[in-house]
């Protein structure tokens, strides 16, 4: 006799599964893309930078499953290698902004005094800056490449994590179990970092999963306008940009394929993030 009666969350989805069918499809898509990218050096049929001017803009064939681009490079290989750069950027941004956002959010949510007020204002200020704009500013200062946008994106995604954490902490602070810790005489840092923070991680993690999709799209956009990854390194955003000329000439695939992959992975990750936060949100309320 467990307490299902008091835990309606266990029954929100009919079979008690963590994700819906759509969710599992999204997980599968994400895993396939990540695995193909990770294993690119082993699996890719060609060197992604190998220029073969004899087969320029070739359609799909047995030699080139997804065709070739304007320089005759194998599209499949470039997409697989492109995933390595396109996925690693968002990964760094999400990891860094989650850790920093969590800590700043805890600080802002747990205290009542000036620390909280200043941090809250800083979050507000950062919210006012579009991430892309901040990234361009960073690029203007530090130059093109992967590092400047990653730094800028990390900063602009911190407030999303921090604000959420802050709200959760404020709610958590007044819960009886936290007050019980205080009355029992446990020190605040131990309670906050050791006991409260782990309870927030699932919710914050769901938000960060969502962020991953947005960051990936933003970084691809930066590469597309030529500010991110520089040629010849393959990157999905850069690939779309390079294929613009071919697009005008009626060759759709070289631009369409990387765009499709970006859409596919962003949608998949958003679906996962939404479902996770729905699940966990329901659990916390």
């Amino acid at each position, binding site marked *: *006799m467990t*307490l*299902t*009666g008091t835990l309606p969350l266990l029954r929100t989805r009919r079979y008690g599964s963590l994700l819906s069918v759509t969710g599992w499809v999204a997980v599968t898509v994400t895993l396939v893309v990540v695995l193909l990218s990770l294993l690119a050096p082993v699996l890719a049929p060609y060197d992604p930078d190998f220029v073969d001017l004899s087969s320029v803009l070739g359609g799909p064939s047995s030699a080139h499953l997804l065709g070739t681009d304007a320089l005759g490079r194998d599209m499949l290989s470039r997409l697989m290698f492109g995933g390595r750069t396109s996925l690693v950027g968002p990964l760094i941004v999400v990891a860094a902004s989650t850790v920093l956002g969590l800590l700043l959010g805890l600080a802002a949510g747990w205290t009542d005094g000036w620390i909280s007020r200043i941090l809250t204002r800083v979050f507000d200020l950062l919210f006012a800056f579009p991430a892309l704009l901040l990234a361009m500013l960073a690029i203007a200062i530090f130059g093109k490449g992967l590092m400047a946008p990653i730094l800028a994106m990390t900063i602009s995604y911190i407030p999303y994590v921090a604000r959420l954490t802050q709200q959760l902490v404020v709610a958590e602070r007044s819960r009886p179990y936290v*007050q*019980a810790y205080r009355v*029992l*005489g*446990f020190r605040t840092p131990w309670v906050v970092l050791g006991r409260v923070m782990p*309870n927030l991680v699932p919710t914050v993690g769901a938000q960060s999963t969502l962020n991953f999709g947005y960051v990936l799209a933003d970084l691809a956009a930066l590469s597309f306008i030529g500010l991110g990854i520089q040629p010849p390194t393959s990157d999905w955003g850069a690939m779309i940009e390079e294929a613009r000329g071919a697009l005008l000439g009626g060759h759709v695939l070289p631009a369409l394929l990387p765009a499709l992959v970006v859409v596919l992975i962003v949608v998949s990750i958003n679906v996962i993030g939404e479902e996770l936060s729905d699940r966990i949100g329901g659990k916390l309320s």
Partner: protein
Amino acid sequence: MSKLLEIDQFTLHFPGRGALLNEVSLHVDDGEAVALVGESGSGKSLTTRAALGLFPETSRLSGSVKVQGLDTTSAPAAKLLQLRRNRASMIFQDPRAGINPVRTVGDFLTETLVRWRGLSREESVERAITQLEQVGLRRTKEMMRQYPHQLSGGMLQRVMIAAALLDSPELLLCDEPTTALDVTTQAGILELLREQQQARAMGMLFITHDLNLAASLCDRVYVLRKGEVVEHGAACDVFLSPQADYTRQLVGATPRIELDKVPTAPAADGTMPLLSVKGLGRRYELPGGEMLTALNDATFTLAPGGSLGVVGESGSGKSTLARMIVALETADEGELAINGRVRAPRPLRARERKLLAKDVQIVFQDPYLSLDPRIAVGKAVADVFRLHQGQGRADAVQSARELLERVGIGPERFDSKPRALSGGQRQRVAIAKALAARPKLLVLDEATSALDVSVQAQVLELVEEVREQLGLTILFVTHDLAVVSRLCAELLVLQQGQIVEQGPTAKILSAPTSDYTRTLLDSRPRALWEEQPA
């Protein structure tokens, strides 16, 4: 003649959880008040909802639930809608959950009249106002323009009753309609329900976990346990000579005031009081700048080994007092000393808090919220031993095992997360956690009011036991005089932040000097067959 409500061999299966209701049979005749008594999880709400044709999705049904001959298990949606609109109404536990907070009381009441009865706006307003007057509300014209948050819980529950009565139902279903209310408010609502039920000759099915309530309102009673009716009959028969074991246990566990069983305080021997409170006050600033005095000029002492009950309704300041004693809040004025140490009038520093923890601990009301959901119960208790008794990991685990065993949590539960435990078990763990700091004073803030009666009785027993064994001093904050009468030798009655009466429990209960204490005593539900207060 067909019965008003007739449930016959009704079984409700829910996939994965078995039969939630098992061959339940009950009936309510025209104009009859019937109580359905059971603890949480007994299926009493499911039964009531079944009468309106509301079944959990994916459940399998058998048997029949007939309202005036209409079987709700098989009736088409249109018929059910008609039933809910015209013939049956329901009142829920929490009036605030059942009303749209952004619309006025008037909108709420007239909506159904305009849409379903085809009344004009003026006619519906008139009918709504008459109805509000009937349920004992005053200044009804203004109330029609007010929003739910402007009304108290008791007033709002009256509005909900008015809404239920607007349809002139023949069957009124009440699902714990007074559980969220104060005793004095509850008394008024019960009076109103009794009056309306008799005046309209309505059939009423009254769901409650409280035997006393059932007895004060209903002629016949069904006792439900784990989805099965274990006993039914005339209310006085069931309560005075219960047949089923479960009913007997329930009747035994129901707290009542028995003056000869009230504990007496140990003779004062001039030792220093463990807790001494002098002129303690706490004010809050309300939005808008107004000041609310939560507690004013409270003065009392509690001797080592004593037991003090602090009784009051919501807003009396009893929880504020408890929270100030454990330093979750800081007093605005007055002095508080525990174990000879005078409390600094500011938030405590980490060192002071750790010291204080060995003097006083608290057990909160809701055991579902007061345990960290992620931490296994054994570890939660062991952590306290490590902090306060300076024990190593292995020793702390051993101490935690012993203490948990002592409060009735076996070693097989040591690694369980709180969610795997029942409410009573969780409260035992919460008590163990508090005791692990080896405090001298234990504050219990409504520590049993979220529990079922039978569980409450067990937890009270546990508190009594550890009090005797460990020589603990107890401060029990509650709204329930009966609970206090069993546990506390001394009593302190709070009303709106003021102490209105204090002294030995037996004396106060037998001869209260303040009007308010008398009102509290008189508001306790009284069985229909007992003498009613004049």
